[in-house]
Each structure stands twice: as C-alpha cells, then as structure tokens.
C-alpha cells in the first residue's frame, strides 16, 4: 500500500489524504493498481477537481517529443508545464496560444480544464489549438483523439476534468511572436458600467484584455478598476538588447500561513487604493515583458498562504451578455457588501462557447475573486449566489469550484447528460473519479 500524503488544490480547501503514484513512463498510466484513480498535474486548480483518494501524478512526464518550427506544432507529454513550454518556445519565437494566469499548470491540467486566457474573446480556449491527444483509457488501451478522430472522446476530455482517461501527450499549435514583450495599454474606469462599456469598445481590436476590479468600492464606484489591454509587441518597437529574453525565477515567498487578521478590510483597502491610484492618468501605454503581463501572481511563491490556514475559494462565474452587466453588478455588489477581502478580483469578457461538453467558457462576462474561508456562514451565501447564476443561465468554473451543488451543476451545464453518456462509453466502471465528480454526481 502506497503512503498517504495530504493533498489540496491551490485554495488549500478541501484537503484529502491520498496515495500519490508518480507516473514516469506511459506504462505507469494505468487504472488497475487502485479501484479508481485521478490524473493529477500541478494542483493549480483551486478546489477539489484535482483531489481523490488515489491520484497518479503526471509531473514526471515532462518531455517534449517533437517540434515542427514551420507549423509551430509542439508534441509534448502531459506533465510539461506552461513554464517548460515557454522556456522552449520563446527563444524560438513562439508562445503558448492560450495561457492561464499562472505558468505552473501542466499541459494535461490545461486540457482537462479547457483553460481560457486573456485572449478568449479573440482566440477561444485552448481546445482550438489542440491538434491531437494521446490518451490511455480505463481499459488500458492507447488511443489518439482529435476533432476528427473519436471527436466524442475529444470534446469530453477538453474540459472533462480528468474523468475520461489519462492524457499522455498532446500536440499543440503554438503562436508565432516577434518578441517576448507585450504592449500594454491600461485604462482607468470609474464604475462597473464604464468598465463594461470599455470592454465593448475594445473587444474587436485587442488580442488580450482583462479588468482588475477594486473589490472594496461600493455604490457609485462599484466596479471601478483598471482595464489592461495587450498585444505582442512587434520587433521594431523593442529597444532592448535581446528580443526574446526568458523570465527569471521568483524570489519572493510566503514562508508561513498568514494569521486570519492580517488580511482585513483595512489592509485590503490600502492595497486596492494603492493599486488603483498607482496610475495617475486615465490611460497609459507601456511595453512590458510577458512575465509581469501574464503572470503577476507568480512573482510571489506560495501566495495562497496569505489567506490563512483555512484556505480560500476562488469563485469564478460567467453569465451571458444579455442582462450580464446588471447581473454581474448585482453579484459583485453582494460580495462587496459582505466585505469579503479578495486580493484580486478580475472581470473579463469571453467569446463564444466551443463543443466541449463541460467546457466553462460561454459568451459573456466572467468574474473571478478570492473568498477566504473564515466563518462557516459563507457557504449559504455562496449557494445563494449560485442560484442567481443558474437563473441567469450562467455557470461556475469547475477548475475553481469546491462547493457547487449537484442540482445547480446540472442546471449550469446542459451538455452534462451527453458527457455522462460518453463517459459510460469509455469508462463504464468509473475508474476515473474525483472528489468533485463524486460531489457533483458525475460518478
């Protein structure tokens, strides 16, 4: 019997004592050692999507297998992280086509969550760039799937949170870039309506966009923030020695859990106000390296400890554009009203949905914020919020979820029955399951 280790997602809630078997070779991706298993990457999902009593860690599967510089096609094992990918791709003039807000997730984890980046409104989620998946299924068989080959398996796996089988390797189409830099334009907004209006105005022309929201402002200033727009900077705009420098490692660390009182409304207010007023002018343009642009949070190692030992939830929802502005303003208003100290609150627009059966993105506004677990009465409050999201035909992002209820989940994901059908086909005995899939009634 393998040893038990305490595992948790990035939100440090919940924690599960699990046996962790590390996969070094493709043959280690099997289901017959345990009654049921879950593939696990970097545990950068926040809640219980990456948790189960028996997990198979794909982190040692970190090899790049093939690269075609003409087409920008990279074939790599699932445990390769976005950072590994960047280290290889940037010096060769390429970048991940879609990246989450941290570079530590694995390719397998990004596929399982069908991640979206700041360019979702323009480019869609990562699924659009996955040309082929090499999988190991519940019965041990090795298959390829893609939009053309076993498309049912492909669209159940992209966004399927590890429940269809092990992704061993994937072929990803990279994006060509002409420098490692981003031209960033930031626009200060006065309130929620203005934030939404500027999104609407800039959608068409920009590749990357995201808004940081001052989560402590109420009333007329509710939803004020900074919209950050970005483009890959062309080579002739760069006045540096090197066009493709890589990032350095992070130096800052949170070596211990912050006590609960450290993050209170006052310290948060100071932080938010400073951040907002950091920029004086209404709009400003700068050229910055990809690292601070895409991965500001990676600068501080283990920053998830600042919310204390009890951990936190990242609450991310999307609602369709129709009435989206009012609904998001209402949701944000209720959260702000409770005085929830979220260090980072982010609003973004998403483009059209893809065929992923459990993929999160649908066209609309998505809001993400941190909710620390301090007192227990936060649960009923969040469940109330979820009801409003259901009413608005919106949904919660599974990669961040730890508390969603079965019924709400089923209402949010109309293709759930289709997903279950495909899962029965490829994994009739539920060899693949997670805490989340048990909670949500998928397994």
């Amino acid at each position, binding site marked *: 019997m393998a*040893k038990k280790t305490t595992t948790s997602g990035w939100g440090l809630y919940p924690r599960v004592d699990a046996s962790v078997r*590390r996969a070094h*070779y493709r043959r280690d991706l099997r289901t017959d050692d345990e009654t049921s298993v879950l593939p696990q990457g970097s545990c950068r999902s926040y809640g219980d999507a990456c948790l189960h009593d028996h997990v198979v860690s794909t982190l040692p599967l*970190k*090899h790049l*297998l*093939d*690269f075609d510089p003409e087409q920008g096609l990279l074939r790599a094992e699932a445990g390769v992280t976005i950072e590994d990918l960047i280290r*290889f791709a940037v010096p060769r003039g390429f970048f991940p086509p879609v990246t989450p807000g941290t570079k530590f997730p694995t390719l397998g984890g990004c596929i399982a969550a069908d991640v979206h980046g700041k360019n979702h409104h323009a480019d869609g989620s990562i699924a659009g760039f996955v040309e082929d998946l090499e999988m190991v299924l519940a019965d041990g068989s090795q298959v390829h799937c893609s939009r053309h080959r076993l498309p049912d398996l492909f669209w159940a796996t992209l966004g399927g949170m590890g429940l269809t089988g092990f992704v061993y390797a994937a072929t990803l189409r990279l994006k060509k870039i002409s420098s490692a830099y981003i031209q960033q334009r930031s626009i200060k907004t006065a309130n929620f309506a203005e934030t939404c209006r500027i999104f609407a105005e800039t959608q068409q022309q920009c590749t990357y966009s995201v808004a940081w929201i001052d989560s402590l402002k109420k009333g007329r200033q509710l939803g004020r923030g900074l919209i950050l727009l970005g483009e890959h900077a062309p080579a002739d705009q760069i006045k540096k020695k090197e066009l493709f420098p890589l990032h350095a490692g992070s130096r800052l660390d949170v070596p211990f859990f912050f006590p609960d009182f450290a993050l209170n409304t006052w310290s948060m207010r100071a932080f938010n106000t400073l951040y907002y007023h950091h920029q004086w002018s209404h709009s400003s343009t700068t050229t910055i390296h990809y690292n601070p642009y895409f991965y500001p949070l990676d600068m501080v190692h283990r920053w998830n400890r600042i919310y204390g030992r009890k951990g936190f939830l990242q609450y991310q929802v999307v609602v369709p554009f129709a009435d989206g502005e009012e609904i998001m303003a209402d949701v944000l208003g209720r959260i702000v009203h409770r005085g929830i100290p979220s260090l980072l609150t982010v609003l973004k627009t998403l483009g059209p949905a893809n065929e992923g059966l459990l993929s999160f993105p649908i066209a609309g506004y998505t809001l993400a914020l941190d909710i620390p677990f301090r007192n227990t009465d936060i649960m009923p409050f969040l469940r109330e919020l979820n009801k409003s999201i259901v009413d608005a035909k919106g949904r919660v992002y599974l990669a961040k979820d730890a508390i969603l209820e079965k019924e709400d989940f089923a209402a949010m994901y109309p293709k759930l029955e289709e997903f279950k059908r495909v899962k029965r086909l490829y994994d009739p005995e539920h060899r693949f399951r997670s805490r989340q899939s048990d909670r949500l009634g998928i397994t």
Partner: protein
Amino acid sequence: MRALVLGAKSAIAQAIVERLDGYDFALAARDSEELAPFAADLRLKRSCAVELIEFDALDTDALERFPHKVHDQCGPFDLVVLVFGYLGDQRAAERDTTAMARSLNVNFTGAAIALSHLANYLEESGKAGGIIGICSVAGDRGRQSNYLYGAAKGGLAIFLQGLRNRLASTPVHVLTVKPGFVDTPMTQDLDGLFLVASPAKVADDIVRAYKKKKDVLYTPFFWRWIMLIIKLVPERVFKKLKL
C-alpha cells in the same frame, strides 16, 4: 564527448544527463525503448546526439562485448556513468536465494564485470575520460535493515577504489559517489527516511565533483560526517542497535 549511462531510466541518471553540458549520450537500460521521450526531449532542447541501447546487468555473458556494441551502435565514448542498482526487500531476501542473488549480482557482480570491460575500453582508447560509479552510504557499514544491498554497494566502492588506483596513471578519472537518501522510485514506498535529497541536488553535486576530479563524493555533503560518526560507533554497541 559522449557519455554512456548505465541504468538511464533512474531519476538520478536523468538528472545527471541534464547537467552534463556538451556531451552526446548513449543511454543504456532494460527496455531502452521507453527512454524515447527522454531522448527526444534532450535532442530538442540541447541539439545533442542521443542513442538508446539495451543493457541488462544480469546478462553477464554479454558484458564483455558490451563496450564494442556501444561503440558500434552509438559511436566512441569517453565517460561511463554507472547508475543502475537494485534495493530489494532485505527481510524477504534473507530466505530467498533468487532475491539474494539478484541484489548481489546487480549491485556488485554485474556492475564490477561491466566496469572492468568498460575500463579496458576507455584505457585502450587512450583519450581523457572518466568513470562515475554510484554506490551508497549503505555500503559504509552493515546494518540489519539492508546489509545485502549494503554489502554489494560496499563491494562496488572497493572495486572502484582499486580501479582508480589502476587508472591513476592514465587520463581516465574515477569518481565514487555515495548518496544518502534520495527521493526516487527506489525509495517511494519506504518509511522512516530522513534528510531526503532531490535527484537534482545529488546530480548537481556529482557533476561538479566530476569536473573537479574528486575521488569520493558523499552527497549531500553532510553524509560524510554522519557516516564518519556511524563508523566510529564500536561494534560492541553497534551490533545491538536497531538500524
């Protein structure tokens, strides 16, 4: 420069390979085909030549021809890194001849025979080169929990010492490595480990020590002092300890 790595599937072996700049590689292992992803990754990132070759330390009859097989299939080589090893279950092996023989034959007999022929090859090639042999702190003093493995690894350390003496007048350098506990598949299910090092840390030390032409390396360094103290405990006392 080409390095021949014996037991290239080990996590420590791969960490060493990643740190040996400027080398091409012949990676030897059982079922060496499984190393294809590792080899592909190396070729892509480092643009070096990487060849895979079958090797089983228990196939004693093949060991004499092995250096020439490597030479023919992969090209001439000047560095040999011997990493393979087999821990086994001490308690079970005490009553099981096959298990007993396996531990002795992999860790000592196979290793010593392979290295003898490889040393001849390196010496005859007349080029500057080296041998890195991975032993273990377990070979410094016999303990009830792993003396079979320990005896074989201790034997290998003495073998390497003799080889170093023999090759001292040639340009072939011999480095003996004695790691403490390392976090690898070998130790994944063991309890009661302490001061566990990462393969990366151990490999950093090994490559640095080889470049500096060190003779014996304890890694991490504090194991030298820990083993010194352990070796100083009088046998009268030591034999009663539950170690």
